[in-house]
């Protein structure tokens, strides 16, 4: 393949007959005949052509064929131009003119030209020059055509190589996709088995502890009672952790829809919902203008629910608690929404731990929760092609930002709100079921 490529890039110059195949051999000889490479050979070819023409013309004159010498020399000039190039063609014109002058114009056998023959001779020279130039032009055209053909061949070759490459890449991709699919299946099987098998023993722990508590409550002392309560609490907590983890992995597997979501509307809903849980608390809400963005409504709702309930949770000791929700116009493509509170805040030193699964920056006695809320937020926003970040200081409050791609066309903004009918998630991201979960969303 490499040798072939080389052969087509070198257009016709100094190539040995090395290639196999009848077709290629034909091309080779064709090319060799078309161009004589060595200057000596080329000029020699011109001289020989003219000499042959002279011989033929003389012979014809000898046999009483008059006035054909012009034609014969023209043929010689044309041949020289065609096969040997511009220089030899000029030589052929000069030689033919001289021969014509010497042998065929009066006075014969002398380079003198009589006045009577002068126009005749002059016409011959002009004619010879025209033939030579036509021949040269044609030659050049053919050369450029050949060049173009060669280039095309090279391109075809390159394209074929590229196609091969693409095909190979495609195969690799298909293989990779299959591997990924297998990995995904395995992961699904894993979560499935967690869902089925890990919860059963927990239920038994809880169940039998309760039974024990009931059965032996009279005979157990206060300490033993406390031990049983601790077992119960721990088992329930583990149940919550497993549920949260399963919900979290479910978010990773569900494909987010992309519809236009009115964030202002969504925030209004979420804040209203949170308001039901915060009766008796002094919370000052400040909600700025919010844009329409693209995304999965149920998932984005979950993001807001987590952030807002975190803000509510971590401001529980503030009177009044201040929670601000707004947006900063980041750049052309993204919009950045923030939720700011004046609550417990956090040390920026631990900022990189904020979004980790089950990462908590506060003691469970201070603020409840498993620590999956912000991890869920991050996962959802990443799945939407956005970014999350947090800013805060201890006792100074915290601000959480998330960015989302903007809705590109204005027309899209005018679209009626998509009434999402897909899966609804509760605040942990579990598809909504019994309304039994009473504890708040989780966070650091």
């Amino acid at each position: 393949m490499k040798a072939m490529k080389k052969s087509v890039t070198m257009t016709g110059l100094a190539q040995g007959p090395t290639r196999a195949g009848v077709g290629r051999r034909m091309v080779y000889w064709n090319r060799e005949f078309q161009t004589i490479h060595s200057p000596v050979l080329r000029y020699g070819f011109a001289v020989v052509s003219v000499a042959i023409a002279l011989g033929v013309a003389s012979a014809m004159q000898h046999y009483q064929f008059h006035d054909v010498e012009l034609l014969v020399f023209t043929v010689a000039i044309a041949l020289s131009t065609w096969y040997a190039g511009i220089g030899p063609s000029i030589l052929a014109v000069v030689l033919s003119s001289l021969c014509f002058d010497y042998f065929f114009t009066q006075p014969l056998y002398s380079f003198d030209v009589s006045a009577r023959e002068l126009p005749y001779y002059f016409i011959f020279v002009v004619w010879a020059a025209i033939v030579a130039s036509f021949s040269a032009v044609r030659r050049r055209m053919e050369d450029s055509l050949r060049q173009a053909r060669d280039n095309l061949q090279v391109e075809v070759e390159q394209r074929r190589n590229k196609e091969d490459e693409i095909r190979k890449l495609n195969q690799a991709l298909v293989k990779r996709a299959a591997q990924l699919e297998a990995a995904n299946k395995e992961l699904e099987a894993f979560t499935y088995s967690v869902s089925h098998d890990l919860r059963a023993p927990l239920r038994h722990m809880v169940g039998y502890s309760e039974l024990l508590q009931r059965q032996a409550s009279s005979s157990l002392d206060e300490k033993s009672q406390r031990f049983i309560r601790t077992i119960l609490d721990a088992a329930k907590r583990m149940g919550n952790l497993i549920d949260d983890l399963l919900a979290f992995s479910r978010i990773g597997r569900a494909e987010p829809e992309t519809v236009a979501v009115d964030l202002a509307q969504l925030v209004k809903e979420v804040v209203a919902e949170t308001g039901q849980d915060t009766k008796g608390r002094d919370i000052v809400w400040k909600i700025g203008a919010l844009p329409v963005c693209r995304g999965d409504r149920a998932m984005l709702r979950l993001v807001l629910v987590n952030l807002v309930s975190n803000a509510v949770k971590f401001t529980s000791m503030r009177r009044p608690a201040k929670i601000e929700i707004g947006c900063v116009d980041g750049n052309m493509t993204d919009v950045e929404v923030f939720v700011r509170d004046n609550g417990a805040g956090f040390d920026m030193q631990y900022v990189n731990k904020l979004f980790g699964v089950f990462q908590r920056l506060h003691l469970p006695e201070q603020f409840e929760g498993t620590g999956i809320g912000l991890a869920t937020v991050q996962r959802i926003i990443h799945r939407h092609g956005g970014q999350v970040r947090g800013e805060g200081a201890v006792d100074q409050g915290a601000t959480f930002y998330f960015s989302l791609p903007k809705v590109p066309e204005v027309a899209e903004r005018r679209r009626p709100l998509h009434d999402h009918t897909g899966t609804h998630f509760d605040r942990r991201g579990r598809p909504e079921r019994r309304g039994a979960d009473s504890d708040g969303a989780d966070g650091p």
Partner: protein
Amino acid sequence: MIVEDDPNDVELTLTALTDHNLANEVVVTRDGQQALDYLYRRGEFNTRAAENPAVMLLDLKLPKVSGLEVLQQIKSDERLKMVPVVVLTSSHEEQDMMRSYRLGVNAYVVKPVDFHEFVNAVKELGVFWAVINEPPPGSLKK
């Protein structure tokens, strides 16, 4: 009728039913094969009376024949398809739920981790299916 492989779950369920005086007439089978044998009165059950259970509480993850396979068998059999089947499982998985409903399950209940909730769920199921609900003709009357 309860189909449940885990002895602890069987005990907890029976405890919950006993608490509410619903445990008389409960048949427990320990895997899908045994459950089908009971329904078809085969093998060890070939002498029992020709009555269908008023309700079947079916676990999904069972040895030999899985709960979904049992469900499929019941719902594709003309004589058995009327038997009310309640899936009682640990699994929250949407795919289990979807498949169960597609196969025609009458209810899908996730076993709560909390014991009180569990007892309550089992009690409600027992009361509803054995007392409130009018079972199809040919069922065992309580």
